[in-house]
Protein backbone atom coordinates (compact mmCIF):
# COMPACT_ATOMS: atom_id res chain seq x y z
CA UNK A 1 0.00 0.00 0.00
CA UNK A 2 1.34 3.43 -0.89
CA UNK A 3 1.93 5.61 2.16
CA UNK A 4 0.74 9.18 2.34
CA UNK A 5 3.51 11.78 1.93
CA UNK A 6 4.44 13.94 4.90
CA UNK A 7 4.45 17.61 3.95
CA UNK A 8 6.01 19.62 6.70
CA UNK A 9 6.51 23.36 7.05
CA UNK A 10 9.93 23.88 8.62
CA UNK A 11 10.27 27.64 8.37
CA UNK A 12 11.45 29.06 6.03
CA UNK A 13 11.00 25.95 3.87
CA UNK A 14 8.37 23.32 3.04
CA UNK A 15 9.65 19.76 2.90
CA UNK A 16 7.90 16.74 1.46
CA UNK A 17 8.97 13.36 2.78
CA UNK A 18 7.82 10.20 1.06
CA UNK A 19 8.50 7.07 3.03
CA UNK A 20 6.90 3.71 3.55
CA UNK A 21 9.15 3.02 6.53
CA UNK A 22 6.82 3.37 9.49
CA UNK A 23 9.45 4.17 12.17
CA UNK A 24 10.67 7.18 10.15
CA UNK A 25 7.18 8.62 9.95
CA UNK A 26 6.67 7.95 13.66
CA UNK A 27 9.86 9.73 14.70
CA UNK A 28 9.06 12.69 12.42
CA UNK A 29 5.57 12.95 13.96
CA UNK A 30 7.03 12.86 17.44
CA UNK A 31 10.04 15.18 17.08
CA UNK A 32 8.22 17.64 14.81
CA UNK A 33 5.03 17.80 16.90
CA UNK A 34 3.90 21.41 17.02
CA UNK A 35 4.92 21.98 13.40
CA UNK A 36 2.44 22.45 10.58
CA UNK A 37 1.79 19.20 8.76
CA UNK A 38 0.14 20.17 5.48
CA UNK A 39 -2.63 17.80 4.56
CA UNK A 40 -3.00 18.77 0.93
CA UNK A 41 0.43 18.85 -0.72
CA UNK A 42 -0.87 20.47 -3.90
CA UNK A 43 -1.84 23.64 -2.01
CA UNK A 44 1.73 24.69 -1.20
CA UNK A 45 5.04 25.18 -2.94
CA UNK A 46 7.33 22.41 -1.81
CA UNK A 47 11.00 23.38 -1.60
CA UNK A 48 12.48 19.91 -1.20
CA UNK A 49 11.28 16.45 -2.14
CA UNK A 50 12.95 13.74 -0.08
CA UNK A 51 12.16 10.07 -0.36
CA UNK A 52 13.49 7.43 2.03
CA UNK A 53 12.84 3.99 0.57
CA UNK A 54 14.08 0.41 0.95
CA UNK A 55 16.82 -0.35 -1.56
CA UNK A 56 15.57 -3.51 -3.25
CA UNK A 57 13.63 -6.71 -2.81
CA UNK A 58 16.67 -8.80 -1.82
CA UNK A 59 17.96 -6.19 0.60
CA UNK A 60 14.63 -6.50 2.37
CA UNK A 61 15.86 -9.80 3.76
CA UNK A 62 19.64 -9.54 4.04
CA UNK A 63 20.94 -6.53 6.02
CA UNK A 64 18.14 -4.29 4.79
CA UNK A 65 19.18 -0.88 3.54
CA UNK A 66 17.49 2.37 2.64
CA UNK A 67 18.24 4.88 -0.07
CA UNK A 68 17.54 8.58 0.00
CA UNK A 69 16.20 10.25 -3.14
CA UNK A 70 16.25 14.01 -3.48
CA UNK A 71 14.15 15.26 -6.36
CA UNK A 72 14.26 11.70 -7.68
CA UNK A 73 18.06 11.42 -7.61
CA UNK A 74 20.12 9.40 -5.15
CA UNK A 75 23.21 11.44 -4.22
CA UNK A 76 24.33 9.15 -1.38
CA UNK A 77 25.19 5.52 -0.85
CA UNK A 78 22.49 3.48 0.92
CA UNK A 79 22.51 3.15 4.70
CA UNK A 80 21.23 0.42 7.03
CA UNK A 81 17.48 0.65 7.53
CA UNK A 82 18.04 1.33 11.23
CA UNK A 83 19.52 4.72 10.24
CA UNK A 84 16.58 5.76 8.08
CA UNK A 85 15.53 8.70 10.27
CA UNK A 86 19.00 10.27 10.65
CA UNK A 87 19.35 9.75 6.88
CA UNK A 88 16.35 12.05 6.44
CA UNK A 89 17.85 14.71 8.72
CA UNK A 90 21.28 14.53 7.05
CA UNK A 91 19.68 14.70 3.61
CA UNK A 92 17.73 17.77 4.60
CA UNK A 93 20.95 19.42 5.83
CA UNK A 94 22.65 18.53 2.58
CA UNK A 95 19.92 19.72 0.27
CA UNK A 96 19.57 23.06 2.05
CA UNK A 97 23.35 23.61 2.12
CA UNK A 98 23.69 22.63 -1.54
CA UNK A 99 20.75 24.36 -3.18
CA UNK A 100 19.66 27.33 -1.08
CA UNK A 101 21.54 30.36 -2.30
CA UNK A 102 18.99 33.09 -1.69
CA UNK A 103 20.13 33.10 1.95
CA UNK A 104 23.64 33.18 3.35
CA UNK A 105 24.21 29.88 5.16
CA UNK A 106 26.88 29.35 7.78
CA UNK A 107 27.58 26.06 9.56
CA UNK A 108 26.66 27.20 13.07
CA UNK A 109 24.15 26.84 15.86
CA UNK A 110 22.00 29.89 16.54
CA UNK A 111 20.01 30.83 19.64
CA UNK A 112 18.17 33.95 20.69
CA UNK A 113 17.45 35.80 23.91
CA UNK A 114 15.80 39.19 24.36
CA UNK A 115 15.76 39.70 20.60
CA UNK A 116 19.52 39.21 20.25
CA UNK A 117 21.04 36.24 18.49
CA UNK A 118 24.02 34.17 19.54
CA UNK A 119 25.90 32.39 16.76
CA UNK A 120 27.94 29.37 17.84
CA UNK A 121 30.24 28.48 15.00
CA UNK A 122 32.58 25.54 15.21
CA UNK A 123 33.99 22.50 13.54
CA UNK A 124 32.27 19.14 14.19
CA UNK A 125 33.26 17.86 17.62
CA UNK A 126 33.72 21.34 19.10
CA UNK A 127 30.78 20.82 21.45
CA UNK A 128 28.51 23.18 19.55
CA UNK A 129 25.38 21.00 19.58
CA UNK A 130 25.74 20.07 23.26
CA UNK A 131 26.14 23.70 24.25
CA UNK A 132 23.25 24.65 21.97
CA UNK A 133 20.97 22.04 23.55
CA UNK A 134 21.93 23.13 27.07
CA UNK A 135 21.30 26.79 26.26
CA UNK A 136 17.95 25.92 24.68
CA UNK A 137 16.95 24.37 28.01
CA UNK A 138 18.24 27.39 29.93
CA UNK A 139 16.03 30.13 28.57
CA UNK A 140 17.41 30.60 25.07
CA UNK A 141 15.24 30.15 21.98
CA UNK A 142 16.57 27.75 19.37
CA UNK A 143 16.99 29.00 15.82
CA UNK A 144 19.08 26.14 14.50
CA UNK A 145 21.56 23.56 15.65
CA UNK A 146 23.06 23.12 12.21
CA UNK A 147 23.09 26.30 10.17
CA UNK A 148 22.72 30.03 10.52
CA UNK A 149 20.27 31.21 7.86
CA UNK A 150 20.89 34.87 7.09
CA UNK A 151 18.56 37.11 5.09
CA UNK A 152 20.68 38.75 2.39
CA UNK A 153 18.60 41.93 2.39
CA UNK A 154 18.25 42.65 6.11
CA UNK A 155 21.12 40.55 7.49
CA UNK A 156 18.72 39.16 10.10
CA UNK A 157 19.00 35.60 11.31
CA UNK A 158 16.05 33.43 10.42
CA UNK A 159 14.87 30.52 12.57
CA UNK A 160 15.29 27.12 10.95
CA UNK A 161 14.13 25.15 13.96
CA UNK A 162 14.69 21.41 13.85
CA UNK A 163 15.56 18.68 16.33
CA UNK A 164 19.10 18.97 17.73
CA UNK A 165 21.37 16.14 16.69
CA UNK A 166 23.28 14.88 19.75
CA UNK A 167 26.14 12.45 19.47
CA UNK A 168 27.73 9.84 21.73
CA UNK A 169 28.41 11.07 25.31
CA UNK A 170 26.37 14.23 24.70
CA UNK A 171 23.19 12.13 24.69
CA UNK A 172 23.50 10.99 28.32
CA UNK A 173 24.93 14.34 29.34
CA UNK A 174 21.84 16.12 28.03
CA UNK A 175 19.52 13.53 29.60
CA UNK A 176 21.02 14.53 32.95
CA UNK A 177 21.13 18.24 32.20
CA UNK A 178 17.55 18.48 30.95
CA UNK A 179 15.60 15.47 32.31
CA UNK A 180 12.33 16.79 30.87
CA UNK A 181 13.68 17.14 27.36
CA UNK A 182 12.14 14.92 24.70
CA UNK A 183 14.70 12.77 22.93
CA UNK A 184 14.00 10.50 20.01
CA UNK A 185 15.45 7.01 19.71
CA UNK A 186 19.19 6.44 19.65
CA UNK A 187 20.69 5.31 16.35
CA UNK A 188 23.82 3.23 16.79
CA UNK A 189 26.88 2.68 14.59
CA UNK A 190 26.24 5.61 12.30
CA UNK A 191 29.17 7.41 10.64
CA UNK A 192 29.00 9.88 13.55
CA UNK A 193 28.72 7.20 16.24
CA UNK A 194 25.52 7.01 18.27
CA UNK A 195 23.07 9.75 17.35
CA UNK A 196 19.86 10.90 19.05
CA UNK A 197 17.69 13.91 18.30
CA UNK A 198 16.34 16.33 20.88
CA UNK A 199 12.97 17.94 20.28
CA UNK A 200 13.08 21.76 20.17
CA UNK A 201 11.42 23.53 23.10
CA UNK A 202 7.83 24.65 22.66
CA UNK A 203 8.84 28.32 22.74
CA UNK A 204 11.30 27.74 19.90
CA UNK A 205 8.63 26.09 17.76
CA UNK A 206 5.89 28.61 18.56
CA UNK A 207 8.09 31.61 17.68
CA UNK A 208 9.67 30.01 14.63
CA UNK A 209 8.84 32.98 12.39
CA UNK A 210 10.42 35.64 14.57
CA UNK A 211 13.85 36.73 13.40
CA UNK A 212 16.67 38.38 15.33
CA UNK A 213 19.84 40.35 14.70
CA UNK A 214 23.23 38.91 15.58
CA UNK A 215 24.76 40.20 18.81
CA UNK A 216 27.40 37.60 19.67
CA UNK A 217 29.53 35.43 17.40
CA UNK A 218 31.29 32.74 19.40
CA UNK A 219 33.65 29.94 18.35
CA UNK A 220 33.22 27.32 21.09
CA UNK A 221 35.62 24.51 21.80
CA UNK A 222 35.04 21.72 24.26
CA UNK A 223 38.33 20.77 25.91
CA UNK A 224 38.47 18.16 28.66
CA UNK A 225 39.38 19.70 32.05
CA UNK A 226 39.70 23.18 30.53
CA UNK A 227 38.69 26.23 32.55
CA UNK A 228 35.76 28.15 31.18
CA UNK A 229 37.24 31.05 29.25
CA UNK A 230 35.92 33.61 26.84
CA UNK A 231 38.20 36.00 25.02
CA UNK A 232 37.52 38.58 22.37
CA UNK A 233 38.95 38.10 18.89
CA UNK A 234 39.44 40.65 16.09
CA UNK A 235 36.51 41.17 13.76
CA UNK A 236 38.66 40.61 10.69
CA UNK A 237 39.62 37.16 12.01
CA UNK A 238 35.95 36.46 12.71
CA UNK A 239 35.03 37.17 9.07
CA UNK A 240 37.75 34.79 7.89
CA UNK A 241 36.53 32.05 10.25
CA UNK A 242 32.89 32.54 9.27
CA UNK A 243 33.81 32.46 5.59
CA UNK A 244 35.49 29.09 6.09
CA UNK A 245 32.32 27.80 7.76
CA UNK A 246 29.90 29.29 5.24
CA UNK A 247 28.21 26.83 2.91
CA UNK A 248 27.68 29.27 0.08
CA UNK A 249 29.97 32.30 0.56
CA UNK A 250 31.74 31.56 -2.70
CA UNK A 251 28.47 31.16 -4.58
CA UNK A 252 27.27 34.52 -3.28
CA UNK A 253 30.63 36.17 -4.01
CA UNK A 254 30.95 39.82 -3.05
CA UNK A 255 27.41 39.93 -1.68
CA UNK A 256 28.23 37.14 0.75
CA UNK A 257 31.40 38.96 1.82
CA UNK A 258 29.51 42.20 2.42
CA UNK A 259 26.82 40.40 4.42
CA UNK A 260 29.39 38.62 6.58
CA UNK A 261 31.22 41.90 7.24
CA UNK A 262 27.95 43.62 8.21
CA UNK A 263 27.03 40.69 10.46
CA UNK A 264 30.37 40.87 12.24
CA UNK A 265 30.38 44.67 12.42
CA UNK A 266 27.35 44.64 14.70
CA UNK A 267 28.48 41.73 16.86
CA UNK A 268 30.84 40.99 19.73
CA UNK A 269 33.21 38.22 18.68
CA UNK A 270 34.78 35.63 20.95
CA UNK A 271 36.58 32.33 21.20
CA UNK A 272 35.24 30.18 24.00
CA UNK A 273 36.71 27.15 25.72
CA UNK A 274 34.85 25.02 28.24
CA UNK A 275 34.61 21.64 29.88
CA UNK A 276 31.78 22.18 32.40
CA UNK A 277 28.42 22.62 30.72
CA UNK A 278 26.71 24.42 33.61
CA UNK A 279 29.57 26.92 33.86
CA UNK A 280 29.26 27.56 30.14
CA UNK A 281 25.52 28.13 30.44
CA UNK A 282 26.05 30.53 33.36
CA UNK A 283 28.62 32.48 31.37
CA UNK A 284 26.21 32.97 28.47
CA UNK A 285 23.48 33.99 30.92
CA UNK A 286 25.82 36.71 32.23
CA UNK A 287 26.74 37.73 28.69
CA UNK A 288 23.11 38.16 27.70
CA UNK A 289 22.19 40.16 30.77
Amino acid sequence: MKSKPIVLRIEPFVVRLDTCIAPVAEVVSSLYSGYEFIEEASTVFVDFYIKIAPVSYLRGYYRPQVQCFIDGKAPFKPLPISQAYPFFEWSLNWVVASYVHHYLLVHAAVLEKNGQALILCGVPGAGKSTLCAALMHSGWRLFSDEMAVIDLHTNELMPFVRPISLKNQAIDLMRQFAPNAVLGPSFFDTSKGTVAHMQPTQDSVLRKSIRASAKWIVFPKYQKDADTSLHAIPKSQTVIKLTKNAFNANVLGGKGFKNLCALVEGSDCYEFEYSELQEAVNLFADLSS
Partner: protein
Amino acid sequence: MALFCTFPEVFTHRFNDELLAYSPLTGETIVLSDFAADIFERLLSKQMNFPDLLSAVKPAQYGDVDIELSLRNTLNELGRRGFIASSK
Protein backbone atom coordinates in the same frame (compact mmCIF):
# COMPACT_ATOMS: atom_id res chain seq x y z
CA MET B 1 55.90 50.42 -18.11
CA ALA B 2 53.43 48.08 -16.42
CA LEU B 3 50.54 49.69 -14.62
CA PHE B 4 49.05 48.05 -11.56
CA CYS B 5 45.37 48.26 -10.64
CA THR B 6 42.96 46.46 -8.36
CA PHE B 7 41.07 43.59 -9.93
CA PRO B 8 37.49 44.57 -10.88
CA GLU B 9 34.81 43.61 -8.36
CA VAL B 10 37.24 43.22 -5.47
CA PHE B 11 35.42 44.06 -2.23
CA THR B 12 37.01 45.56 0.85
CA HIS B 13 35.91 46.27 4.40
CA ARG B 14 37.81 48.08 7.11
CA PHE B 15 37.49 47.03 10.75
CA ASN B 16 39.29 49.73 12.74
CA ASP B 17 42.96 49.29 11.76
CA GLU B 18 42.53 46.17 9.65
CA LEU B 19 41.62 46.01 5.99
CA LEU B 20 39.85 42.90 4.77
CA ALA B 21 39.55 42.13 1.05
CA TYR B 22 37.61 39.59 -0.99
CA SER B 23 38.52 38.53 -4.51
CA PRO B 24 35.73 37.13 -6.69
CA LEU B 25 38.42 35.72 -8.98
CA THR B 26 39.80 33.30 -6.41
CA GLY B 27 37.03 33.42 -3.80
CA GLU B 28 39.65 34.22 -1.19
CA THR B 29 39.19 36.58 1.75
CA ILE B 30 42.35 38.00 3.28
CA VAL B 31 43.42 40.42 6.00
CA LEU B 32 45.97 42.81 4.57
CA SER B 33 49.07 43.82 6.49
CA ASP B 34 49.53 47.56 7.03
CA PHE B 35 52.00 47.69 4.16
CA ALA B 36 49.80 45.68 1.76
CA ALA B 37 46.77 47.74 2.76
CA ASP B 38 48.68 50.93 2.02
CA ILE B 39 49.59 49.68 -1.48
CA PHE B 40 46.14 48.25 -2.13
CA GLU B 41 44.29 51.43 -1.13
CA ARG B 42 46.52 53.50 -3.40
CA LEU B 43 45.69 51.16 -6.28
CA LEU B 44 42.00 51.31 -5.43
CA SER B 45 42.03 55.05 -6.06
CA LYS B 46 44.16 55.00 -9.22
CA GLN B 47 46.39 52.86 -11.45
CA MET B 48 50.08 53.25 -10.68
CA ASN B 49 53.37 51.92 -11.99
CA PHE B 50 56.15 50.46 -9.85
CA PRO B 51 58.34 53.60 -9.52
CA ASP B 52 55.33 55.74 -8.60
CA LEU B 53 54.27 53.21 -5.96
CA LEU B 54 57.80 53.01 -4.62
CA SER B 55 58.07 56.75 -4.26
CA ALA B 56 54.59 56.97 -2.71
CA VAL B 57 55.37 54.54 0.08
CA LYS B 58 57.25 56.24 2.88
CA PRO B 59 60.12 54.08 4.17
CA ALA B 60 60.04 55.74 7.59
CA GLN B 61 56.58 54.38 8.21
CA TYR B 62 57.71 50.77 7.88
CA GLY B 63 60.98 50.84 9.76
CA ASP B 64 64.10 49.09 8.65
CA VAL B 65 62.79 47.04 5.72
CA ASP B 66 63.81 46.80 2.09
CA ILE B 67 60.87 48.73 0.66
CA GLU B 68 61.59 47.84 -2.95
CA LEU B 69 61.73 44.11 -2.21
CA SER B 70 58.66 44.28 0.03
CA LEU B 71 56.74 46.15 -2.64
CA ARG B 72 57.72 43.65 -5.31
CA ASN B 73 56.70 40.69 -3.13
CA THR B 74 53.44 42.33 -2.11
CA LEU B 75 52.47 43.08 -5.69
CA ASN B 76 53.31 39.51 -6.73
CA GLU B 77 51.28 38.04 -3.89
CA LEU B 78 48.26 40.31 -4.42
CA GLY B 79 48.36 39.47 -8.12
CA ARG B 80 48.68 35.74 -7.52
CA ARG B 81 45.70 35.80 -5.16
CA GLY B 82 43.48 37.70 -7.59
CA PHE B 83 43.38 41.10 -5.90
CA ILE B 84 45.36 43.18 -8.38
CA ALA B 85 46.18 43.02 -12.06
CA SER B 86 48.91 44.60 -14.14
CA SER B 87 49.16 45.74 -17.73
CA LYS B 88 52.03 44.53 -19.92
